[in-house]
């Protein structure tokens, strides 16, 4: 799903936290958002997810460039995801039930995702008995269940072990390549950004500083700020 933003502004109590002049994220992108704390990364993601309303400007979705957030075609995975207080199976099935899928279809899709993410043994487990890594995998499986056109992730691997991180990264690359899902991922891990993303967006103080191919932005940035951040100097 293509995203186009123009003069997108978000203010909290008069303080401008996001100010994007123009930004186009093409359909099928696998884009990482990097930047120091307070750069506006999460605000941008929340605006795209429709969880916040912009103070001004336009945010358009898809080829039709509609201004209404297509909630049924996109989803978001949080750093500390909220699982419904029920079984893993029912959590993964939740968006499918909302979309009126039949029981047989749901069973098939849930089984497929559980196997893919190594959750088969946990399917009947209650959500509050899962570890952090398992919780994150269930949240990802739930998000992917209805094959969204746009997947937003806010530091999904910040609190999980390397094996789970690798599994999540593999899954993101797979759905992006095979299903053409546009993936936008906030990460503080530059190695991960290089490993997973094709494009990288560097933000600082609510503005887009640099956006381009991950390889180029992370290895040979055009902007001095980006260079300082990549070199580990800019942490404000």
């Amino acid at each position, binding site marked *: 799903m293509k995203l186009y933003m123009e003069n997108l502004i978000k203010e909290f109590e008069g303080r401008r936290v996001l100010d994007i002049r123009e930004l186009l994220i093409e359909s099928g992108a696998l884009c990482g958002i990097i930047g120091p704390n307070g750069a506006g990364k999460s605000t941008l993601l929340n605006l795209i997810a429709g*969880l916040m309303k912009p103070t001004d400007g336009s945010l358009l979705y898809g080829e039709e460039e509609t201004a209404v957030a297509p909630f049924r075609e996109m989803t978001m995975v949080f750093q500390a995801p909220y699982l*419904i*207080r029920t079984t893993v199976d029912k959590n993964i099935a939740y*968006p499918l039930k*909302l979309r009126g899928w039949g029981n047989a279809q749901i069973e098939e899709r849930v089984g497929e995702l559980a196997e893919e993410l190594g959750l088969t043994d946990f399917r009947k487990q209650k959500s509050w008995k899962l570890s952090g890594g398992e919780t994150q995998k269930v949240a990802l499986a739930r998000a992917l269940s209805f094959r969204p056109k746009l997947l937003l992730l806010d530091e999904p691997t910040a609190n999980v072990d390397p094996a789970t991180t690798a599994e999540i990264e593999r899954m993101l690359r797979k759905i992006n390549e095979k299903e053409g899902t546009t993936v936008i991922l906030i990460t503080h891990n530059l190695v991960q950004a290089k490993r997973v993303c094709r494009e990288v967006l560097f933000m600082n103080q609510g503005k887009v500083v640099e956006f381009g191919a991950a390889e180029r932005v992370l290895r040979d940035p055009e902007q001095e700020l980006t260079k300082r951040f990549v070199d580990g100097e800019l942490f404000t």
Partner: protein
Amino acid sequence: MEQIAIAFQAAIELLVTGDTALYEIVGLSLMVSLSSVVLSACLGVPCGALIGTHSFALKNALLRVIYTLMSLPPVIAGLVVFLLIMRRGPLGAWGITYTPAAMIIAQVCLVTPIITGLTYNIVRDRAPKVKALAATMGAGRLDALKLLIFELRIGILAAIVTGLGRALSEVGAVMIVGGNIKGKTRVMTTYIAQLKSMGDYSTAIAVGIVLLILAFLINTFLYNVQQKVEK
């Protein structure tokens, strides 16, 4: 101490042999308390949920009023309701003074703020996450509300049971608006107060035991529901 033991033994006998008047009082107590809690839940749960999920002007002031009413002394609630429904009062035409209906209204005034306040606290803490989940899953307003109620069911049930506990144990308001009339408005708590002043301790203890058993059964029910959900 010996007198208490004798009274306790007499109370058990009274319960086992089955005193019709006693069971009528228990029945009326349950009817009044359950009716008031059902009405209070119908008012308090949606109000608490709305206040917890919305921002509006004077919200903080409203919350302070609700918290104050949560600890409203029953005699004040009873007095206000009595002044409203007495023959010369604004609702005097209803003719419900010294009836179970008046007792239910007084208890609704006491229990509704408790259920509203407790529901608000539960919703305020967890609703943002549940709402965000519902939105990111593509749920509509109705589905989001269903999910919110499902997720908060134990807390809401606990709020209702707390309200029921207040209704069952309340004496001041029902005494003022009901009048403790035998066979008409006499409930367990007002009966205990009367029996104490008459020096009939064994019957007072018997009624007290019934009250405790009811409280135990209510808490057992809640505990079982919680266990079932948590398993």
